């Protein structure tokens, strides 16, 4: 549960996610989706309740500790390190997990290749377009060798079709090959339907529905939430 001085942003949310699942998190604006991610990632502290990850309590930990436990996240507005090159940006999560600089560089180059960003690897990140930034943000997360859960906050917002395709391809591949669990927050319902195994609908800080896209789309309370607000 999370209060913001009078506004209960998240209330009574009980969310269980299976390992290896791609979970979609949707809901009208202001329903608390980003807050959820911030809570899990350690940027906000919960007021009541607990967050467990693999039977371990992680609420109250610093974001960098949570990252070392294998939970990575992206931000709605891409937070890349603007004055560092794309390659340097990539290396950070590997370095913090005690990879050597050489290995980190090699792994970064490999991932950049996969994401079709190799050509930009020595560019300062500030020179990238918005979509490229988002792609960089996302691929960067995979540099954490311990990554098991990835929280993506609006990864498709304002992103070019081609880059969106790369992002989707990457998510699917990482999920299938490495068993990484995903929570994807997005407004793009068709993409979510394509991508996610299960979907939770958040409204006014509470989960009002869970299931596959068909189940959820036909749920009267969901329709009500989106239309009524």
């Amino acid at each position, binding site marked *: 549960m999370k209060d913001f001085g009078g506004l209960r942003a998240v209330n009574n949310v009980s969310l269980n996610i299976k390992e290896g699942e791609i979970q979609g998190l949707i809901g009208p604006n202001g329903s608390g989706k980003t807050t959820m991610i*911030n809570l899990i990632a350690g*940027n*906000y502290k919960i007021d009541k309740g607990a967050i467990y990850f693999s039977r371990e309590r992680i609420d109250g930990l610093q974001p960098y500790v949570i990252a070392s436990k294998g939970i990575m996240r992206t931000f709605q507005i891409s937070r890349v390190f*603007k004055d560092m090159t794309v390659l340097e940006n990539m290396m950070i999560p590997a370095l913090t997990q005690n990879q050597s600089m050489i290995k980190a560089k090699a792994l970064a180059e490999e991932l950049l290749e996969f994401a079709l960003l190799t050509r930009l690897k020595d560019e300062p990140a500030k020179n990238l377009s918005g979509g490229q930034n988002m792609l960089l943000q996302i691929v960067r997360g995979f540099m954490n060798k311990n990554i098991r859960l990835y929280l993506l906050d609006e990864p498709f917002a304002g992103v070019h079709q081609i880059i969106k395709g790369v992002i989707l391809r990457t998510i699917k591949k990482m999920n299938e090959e490495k068993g990484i669990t995903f929570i994807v927050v997005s407004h793009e319902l068709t993409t979510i339907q394509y991508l996610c195994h299960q979907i939770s609908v958040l409204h006014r800080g509470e989960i009002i529905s869970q299931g596959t896209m068909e189940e959820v789309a036909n749920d009267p309370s969901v329709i009500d939430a989106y239309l009524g607000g």
Partner: protein
Amino acid sequence: MQFLISGIIMGVLYCLMSLGVNFIYGIMKVINWAIGEFFMIGAYVQYLLIVTVLGPRYWYIGVFIVAFCTFFLGAFVQKILIKPMFVGMVEEKTEYATIVTIAMAILFRNLAIFIGGPYIYTPPDYAPPTRIGPLPLSGNNFIAFIGTIAILALFFYFLKRTWIGKAFQAVSQNRSGVLTAGIDVLKFDMIAFGIGTALAGAGGALLAPVILVYPLCGVIPTVRGFEIIVIGGLGSIPGVLVAGLSIGIAESLGAAFINPSFVDIYGFGLLMLILLIKPYGLFGKPERSV
């Protein structure tokens, strides 16, 4: 008891400086490290006015003129130096503002030495010495006190009662929000900066006979001004008053009961105490990051 009074007087005198900085900060989130130099410019201009044209009896006219001049100087400076920060030409904002205003302070200080020479000018007294109860008070201090109170009162009236003042309050609370209300934030920035510097300039004009007029006369007010800001909290207007009074009182009591030669340290002692308990000052608010 008399120490309390003299403490209050001194405390109030320094409030103008910190008010200037805090006001500018509230609007633009920028600290003007050169505020003391506007004080100094105010003092110099006032000295010139009094010695050449006005004569000490019309000191208040001088103060008005000075406030006017420093207002425009401040607005001009803001336009060429600070505004670019907000029109997207500068990346690292706080760093830029800090470095540029510090450089400005150095520039003005040395310009003063270059133009006016490293001399101390003594303006003639504004008024003969008076008394408050049993406490003798120099006429200049008295005038400075009254003048400061008047300016503070005017400022608060302006801020709380006029619609422009309310607009400024709005800008300080929500910069992007006011754009939708049709307020030209950039122009307000310029005016706010001008007002902030005008406050300092007026302070310089008022305090000229007390502190005397010389190139570095802006240094002590700057230090006191920032002391007040750290104690009272950045961006907090009531904090300025509370802090200003506290420092003034702390200094006087300390000088009276502990050791007069340690005068400067009492304000800082108070500062250290406050910093340890409340690092953002009494009324300060930390910035939100995520």
